[in-house]
């Protein structure tokens, strides 16, 4: 069902946990739908220096959270914004079609955390102008 890479990230998820005094925190999903993702970012000079997550969800949700944190760690905000759910799924060697929506969750959690960071620091991030972290990815 899941690729080896997915199983690897599911079994040994990278960057699990919380960051005390995080610069940006994003939470997306909805327990009603069975999945919630919480993303913590540490940002210095426009670069993501640390990232952690917590996820309530299926194997794909956990694996995509883990992969997404790997993909944004050490990257600039601009680079991080280019980490789409498609990209995460590709890096994982693909996902079953019924599980694609779980990867959307990871993309959104990062964006939500960046949005939080922007708000706290009174920055305007052009790419996040229309982003709504409370939108339910299941209904896309």
């Amino acid at each position, binding site marked *: 069902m899941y690729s080896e890479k997915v199983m690897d990230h599911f079994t040994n998820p990278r960057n*699990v946990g919380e960051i005390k005094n995080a610069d940006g925190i994003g939470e997306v999903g909805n327990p009603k739908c*069975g999945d*919630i993702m919480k993303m913590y970012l540490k940002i210095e000079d426009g670069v993501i220096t640390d990232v952690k997550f*917590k*996820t309530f969800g*299926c*194997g794909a949700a956990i694996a995509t959270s883990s992969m997404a944190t790997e993909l944004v760690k050490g990257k600039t905000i601009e680079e991080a914004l280019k980490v789409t759910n498609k990209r995460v799924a590709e890096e994982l060697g693909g996902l079953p079609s019924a599980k694609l929506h779980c990867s959307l969750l990871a993309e959104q959690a990062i964006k939500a955390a960046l949005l939080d960071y922007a708000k706290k620091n009174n920055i305007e991030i052009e790419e996040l102008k229309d982003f709504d972290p409370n939108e339910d990815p299941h209904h896309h």
Partner: protein
Amino acid sequence: MATKVYMDYAATTPVKKEVLDSMIPYYTEKYGNPSSVYSLGRESRKTIDESREKIANILGANPKEIYFTSGGSEADNWAIKAVAMANKDKGNHIITSKIEHHAVLHTCEYLEKHGFEVTYLDVDEYGMVDLEQLKKSITDKTILISIMFANNEIGTIQPIKEIGQIAREKGVYFHTDAVQAVGNVKIDVNELNIDMMSMSAHKIYGPKGIGALYIKKGVKIDPHIHGGAQERKRRAGTENVAGIVGFAKAMELAYENLEEHISKLTKLRDKLINDVKNKIDYVRLNGHPEKRLPGNASFCIEFIEGEALLLNLDMAGIAASSGSACTSGSLDPSHVLMAIGLPHEIAHGSLRLTLGDFTTEKDVDYVVEKLVEIVDRLRQMSPLYEK
């Protein structure tokens, strides 16, 4: 990892050695078509008759009331669709419950698209239907009540005799899906007022792809598969002789040692339930505390999600199941868990462990040990769990 502990007997069972041994000759030397007049064919016919008799005797039925099908789903479809078709001049109303197997529910939904009306009865927090609500739902258009004997997810056993009594008093047919009850409960179809009953062999250590529908003499029902004269012209198709023999053998074994089977499973199950409750916090048992299948332990484990749990258990060599929506990648968790009133987020953390004849105490200990570890690990990464 290879399966070390199988705890999903409600999904399917291995075929017992005695069962397989009884089947093999009907693949090899005794391969005659039961409809053929020569000795090789007559032998197959005789074997089918004997198998039918064995099963009928166990259930207190007449052999002529047992019709072999390809399994439980076919039996459910047959009973409901064909009673509907044969009795539509009498009425177009069917009563069932919200916790039926999909083979019943989706069949009812199909009939709704074709002019039938269906009442889906509520169940209480233990999964029990309410007999008063049932009585009130019956109208003079009601032709069929279909309520499952025992639930496959939460194990709750319904008051079948009383439901049958109500149906009989109102002159309405009563069908019960007994796929999970057969082999775990003593069943006398007459005593329990059952008109039709679905069964499946692969839940009781028989082969997959064979089952039966009990149809009480006199019930007005259309044939299910048209064609040859097999199954008294009601279900055509060359008989699955080996499957029928295996099914009968499995029934025999199940009912030879029923008491022992029940007491052994109940003991193991209760140990499992107690150990899980004692060692893991925020856990609840689904289903009825007493009126439940001897091998069924269904839990909700809060703050974690079922699929992630199953995958971790699988990596520890443990086979289990869940009613979580994520298992199928769909949005809504099991309709059964919803019907007993669980909130979505809790239903997502459901875990069904079902025990069977090959389960040992050591298996239970191993599962509890691993479960504690896995739940802990998953809760560590859950944003909902705050110590």
